[in-house]
């Protein structure tokens, strides 16, 4: 290899083995690379020396992933490095690097100044900007801050995350809605109202809202302004009681709602295939009016400690018939298995999901429905065949093991392709004694299995 100092930079790059696809020609860096290559053969012992001067795209790759403190500190490495950090297109003010635990009480003007200084020194487009205020920090992202900072970002930013922690601020300033290039937007701890001249986020694919209070109609206006939206996540938000979605591009939806939610209607979301619904503090019967037709993944999580959690109340039999026929993965959490009615309901769910491949049932709930276990009728198996089901995980607290056993017996008797069933009674602090564990193991071994290859794992 005989590097020539004539010829253009791209020829020199090919000779050095730098991929053309991402070269940023910083002359001093390229020159120092040549100095180190000039008299070395490609030979294993020498190549460790050769890498002491790294190619520029390699440096860019690392700089983009450095935490904000480490990134700004590179300015002191040498005079060449002084401004290298200023053109990295990612700025993430988050985590311990931004505000370590002993700095959570930094006065707000100091925190503000850090961010403003960085933005003023920065040079070039910013594609990704995160400002996540940690829990316990007294700093709040104010209107004034955002009006100062967003103009630095609005032309180019694609990923934007602005999260106040725990504080409900005044309205999100309208200036944020001028970021037209956004493909991913996450915000939290603000009041949301939509500016009257909002023309939408035409490129937005991924929207995440947490702890946001919606003014009337704001959520609907926001979503209808995002014609390409594919992923939507709404958690612990207030100010909406009706959730009716008709975005045709939406594929993934995750919704954490509270007991004020009156109605969820999803049948118009024709491409929605991955749905998670979680009740924060209980749900009202009849809550779900419709579900998407082609669901493949469905997680439904009841609230942790509400006695009125009955899955049968919110997903009525008519919905089961029309919406569960493509489901491959199903997860139900905080199911109260020792309610006979609920156990029968789970069976009807399984019967409505012929394509089901993986099933996850968990009960973290502290609710102890004091009922004597009902062994009088075992679950009827003959009319059912779950012939795609391969993996089952059942994880419960030690005290509800009897009822889970009925369900397990049903599953083992009807699943002709079952590979693994894991039964974990280890949740919670109450442990079963050795005799009970032994008797459960014996029962599991004796249960009739439709699939000869099925492996049953018992964890405690």
């Amino acid at each position, binding site marked *: *290899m005989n590097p020539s100092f004539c010829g253009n930079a791209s020829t020199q790059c090919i000779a050095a083995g730098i*991929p053309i696809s991402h070269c940023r020609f910083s002359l001093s860096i390229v020159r120092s690379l040549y100095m180190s290559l000039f008299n070395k053969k490609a030979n294993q012992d020498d190549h460790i020396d050769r890498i002491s001067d790294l190619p520029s795209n*390699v440096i860019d790759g690392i700089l983009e*992933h450095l935490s904000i*403190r*480490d990134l700004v500190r*590179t300015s002191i490495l040498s005079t060449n490095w002084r401004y290298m950090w200023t053109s990295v297109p990612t700025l993430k003010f988050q985590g311990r690097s931004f505000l370590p635990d002993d700095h959570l009480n930094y006065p707000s003007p100091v925190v503000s100044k850090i961010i403003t200084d960085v933005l003023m020194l920065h040079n070039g487009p910013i594609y990704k900007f995160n400002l996540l205020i940690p829990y316990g920090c007294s700093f709040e992202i104010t209107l004034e801050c955002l009006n100062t900072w967003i103009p630095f970002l609005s032309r180019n930013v694609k990923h934007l995350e602005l999260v106040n922690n725990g504080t409900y601020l005044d309205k999100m300033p309208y200036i944020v809605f001028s970021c037209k290039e956004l493909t991913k937007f996450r915000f939290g701890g603000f009041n949301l109202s939509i500016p009257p001249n909002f023309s939408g986020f035409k490129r937005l694919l991924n929207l995440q809202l947490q702890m946001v209070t919606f003014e009337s109609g704001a959520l609907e206006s926001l979503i209808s302004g995002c014609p390409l939206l594919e992923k939507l996540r709404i958690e612990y938000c207030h100010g909406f009681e009706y959730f009716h979605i008709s975005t045709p591009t939406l594929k993934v939806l995750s919704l954490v709602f509270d007991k004020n939610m009156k109605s969820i209607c999803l049948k118009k979301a024709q491409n929605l295939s991955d749905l998670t619904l979680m009740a924060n503090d209980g749900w009202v019967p009849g809550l779900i009016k419709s579900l998407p037709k082609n669901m493949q993944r469905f997680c439904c999580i009841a609230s942790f400690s509400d006695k009125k959690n009955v899955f049968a109340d919110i997903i009525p039999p008519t919905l089961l018939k029309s919406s569960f026929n493509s489901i491959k993965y199903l997860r139900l959490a905080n199911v109260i298995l020792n309610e006979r009615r609920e156990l029968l309901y789970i069976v009807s769910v399984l019967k409505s999901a012929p394509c089901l491949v993986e099933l996850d049932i968990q009960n973290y709930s502290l609710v102890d429905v004091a009922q004597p276990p009902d062994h009088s009728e075992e679950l009827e198996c003959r009319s059912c065949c779950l012939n795609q089901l391969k993996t089952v995980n059942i994880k419960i607290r030690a005290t509800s093991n009897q009822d889970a056993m009925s369900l397990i017996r049903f599953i083992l008797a009807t699943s002709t392709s079952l590979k693994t069933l894991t039964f974990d009674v280890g949740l919670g602090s109450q442990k079963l004694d050795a005799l009970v564990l032994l008797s459960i193991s014996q029962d599991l071994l004796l249960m009739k299995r439709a699939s000869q290859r099925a492996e049953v794992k018992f964890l405690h």
Partner: protein
Amino acid sequence: MAQEASSSTSSKTISLKTGDGEIFEIEASAAKQMKTVQRLIDDLGDDITIPLHNVFSKELPKIIEYYKKDITGEITKDFEAEFVKDLNDDEVKVLFLAANYLDANKLFEFLSQNIADRLESKSVEYVRKYFGVENDFTPEEESKLREERAWSFRGIKEDE
């Protein structure tokens, strides 16, 4: 030590020759993930042994291992953690440079994050050594910069 040739009849294997003369086999679908290799295949054909002057027999097997997992969709956080667990900072750097040369994007992204994590809160001297940088600031310039950016100099760990 040359790797055993893959015996799959359904997918083609490509032979790669490292800068220190060792030959390794890789499946054609994994080779596609390394744009430099794919470009060389397009130019030279897939029956010839592809020469990789800037990659050596210490790194290439690791890279092949990564992409073997990638084509079966098995790359998980646990796998990635395990993958770099026993490598020291210099070994990761060498692997990273190889991934750069091969234009292997997924590995490049993963290793750049891993290196950034390893450099987290390290002292200025350590980072200088890692990037092969000589300090050419005057003491006055340096102390002025440290003062201006005081917030970024807090919380640095001592070198081991």
